[in-house]
């Protein structure tokens, strides 16, 4: 692990300000460059930002060796609780989302507490959280009278589809983009706060040697529970916003094993130990699948050669890259770049 920059304020550097300005101006750049197809590019950017937030939430835990394979459970709870409360009880997402976050946090703590106090780590923790995500997915499918089973369901549209009360903004892509940016910045802010906190050092210590950490007075279970509660709550928020934007939720798009594993791998590819690593992971994975999809759609020869098989080409390359990443670049894209730069500087 790289040497910590102790209690530093965020480097309000030229780079950070330029980066933020770029992100905020991006929709206008897109409009200038791509005019008629701006909706498509904005959609891609919004997806990247929402997933970047979810990945960042996962990485809050993942960076401390708490490799959960079950965060799909939390995004699923976030999405489904919010949408079901709205569809069946008419409760606005402004109340629904806090309820969903609370439920998700409770589930996170319920699964986390025994895990941490019994010191279930490594393989066992991964497989246990994997069981959690399956459990939640099965519950969603089982409650098919409300959730639409494996076909998924849609939040009931309110008025013309743009409403503050119903938290619906999907038709206005510009608005949706800034909602996603706000969400993403919130994720980075939480990361930064955690990074500067004492808890971070406690958790770093605990992830390296639990006995040593507790011998210097760190309540390991409590520290781990705190970060789990935070991470699971944030994932629920991410899932809920994803649902509000997509206006569709399905057990395989927002809950379940596939989502959980994607989360882990996107973060690993970007870099789990650096603030923007999960974001880079989100960009990398989303752009990769889009580029491949467009390349196949655009080229008649590829399309006829591959046929329906083209659908799976992106996951094939994705899987292959993941294997290579973990073997040759376990710090991820951004982690490796930053490390190289640091080494060159020193």
């Amino acid at each position, binding site marked *: 692990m790289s040497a910590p920059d102790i209690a530093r304020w965020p480097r309000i550097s030229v780079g950070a300000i330029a980066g933020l300005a770029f992100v905020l101006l991006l929709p206008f750049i897109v409009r200038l460059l791509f005019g008629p197809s701006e909706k498509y590019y904005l959609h891609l950017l919004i997806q990247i930002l929402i997933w970047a937030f979810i990945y960042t939430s996962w990485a809050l835990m993942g960076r401390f*060796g708490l*490799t959960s394979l079950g965060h799909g459970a939390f995004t699923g709870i976030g999405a489904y609780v919010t949408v079901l409360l709205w569809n069946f009880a008419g409760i606005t997402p402004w109340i629904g989302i806090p309820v969903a976050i609370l439920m998700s946090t409770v589930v996170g703590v319920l*699964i986390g507490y*025994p*895990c941490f106090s*019994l*010191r*279930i780590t*490594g*393989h*066992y923790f*991964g*497989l*246990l959280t*994997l*069981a*959690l995500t*399956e*459990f939640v997915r*099965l*519950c969603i*499918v*089982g409650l098919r009278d409300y959730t639409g089973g494996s076909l998924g369901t849609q939040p009931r549209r309110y008025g013309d589809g743009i409403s503050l009360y119903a938290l619906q903004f999907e038709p206005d892509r510009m608005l949706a983009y800034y909602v996603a940016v706000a969400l993403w910045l919130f994720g980075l802010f939480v990361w930064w706060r955690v990074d500067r906190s004492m808890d971070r050092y406690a958790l770093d210590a605990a992830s390296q040697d639990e006995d040593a950490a507790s011998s210097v007075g760190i309540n390991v279970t409590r520290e781990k529970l705190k970060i789990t509660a935070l991470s699971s709550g944030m994932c629920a928020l991410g899932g809920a916003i994803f649902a509000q934007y997509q206006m569709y939720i399905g057990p395989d798009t927002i809950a379940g*094993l*596939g989502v959980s*594993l994607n989360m*882990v*791998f996107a973060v*690993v590819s970007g870099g789990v130990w650096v603030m923007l690593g999960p974001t880079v992971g989100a960009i990398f994975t989303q752009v990769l699948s889009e580029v491949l999809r467009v390349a196949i759609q655009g080229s008649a020869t590829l399309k006829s050669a*591959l046929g*329906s*098989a083209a*659908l*799976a*080409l*992106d*996951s*094939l390359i*994705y*899987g*292959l*890259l*993941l*294997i290579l*990443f*973990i*073997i040759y670049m*376990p710090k991820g894209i951004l982690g490796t770049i930053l490390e190289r730069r640091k080494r060159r500087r020193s």
Partner: protein
Amino acid sequence: MDCQLDIFFLEALLNGILLAGLLALLALGLNLVFGVIDVVWICYAELVMVGMYGVHFSYKAGAPFLLAAAIGIAIVAVAGALLHVLVIRPVLDSEPINQLLVTGGVLFFLQAAATMAFGIEFRNIGISMGSANVADMSFSKSRIVSFVVALVSMLGLWLFLRRSYIGTAIRAIAQDRQIMPLMGVDSRKIYIVTSAIGGGLAGLAATLMVLNYDIYPQIGLQFGPLVFMICVLGGLGNMVGGFVAAFIISQFIAVGSSCFHTEWGYAVAFLFFMIAIFVRPQGLFGGKS
């Protein structure tokens, strides 16, 4: 539908036992690999899927079923050894979770490769054995065959590990990874052999699965989590534990599914699993953790 202690319940119970044989066999290969190499193959179910396609297409190409089964088993055994050499060995000394994640990459890869090669449609091998009827209860014969084969192969593995020289070496490596190489056991070779046997067991399970289920590229996600759960419940690496755990879990599924909807049977099994792990973190029959 409410649950009564009647003949349907008994039928569900017995079907659960038959299912357990298959699940126990599935868990066996994973447990062997974990116990010896200390690596969890997250892509284990996908190896089974590869084996299922192998058996399916060999049979469709005109091979008699037993030959098709042998081809399927051989394919997965080779795949298991390749998985070890190409993917696991480079990360053998890094953090355990990396080993788990790298096989996750293999999961995506195999699933996508199967989708590209075979399409997403459901395939059925089209061998129907019919069903046996005993006192108003009906049992699919292919399940009974699977159960028997599973039991016999478990016995076979047990004998192999106990009686053969290489089996002894495998058990020794599992007990102490550091010392055995000093005693002249080539751990690299043992790991490859173990991976091939683990793969072969996955292939055998695949042969039996083909008789009972349709094949499609995502089938691994259907039973993969279940197999991991059984292994953990029995204590990862503990083969007898996995065997017993398979019976417990399959009862939840069979009885739960007959009383309620199928998903609820599975959901209850997963819930039971989570609670059981909290009560006994080392697995129900845990020796080593």
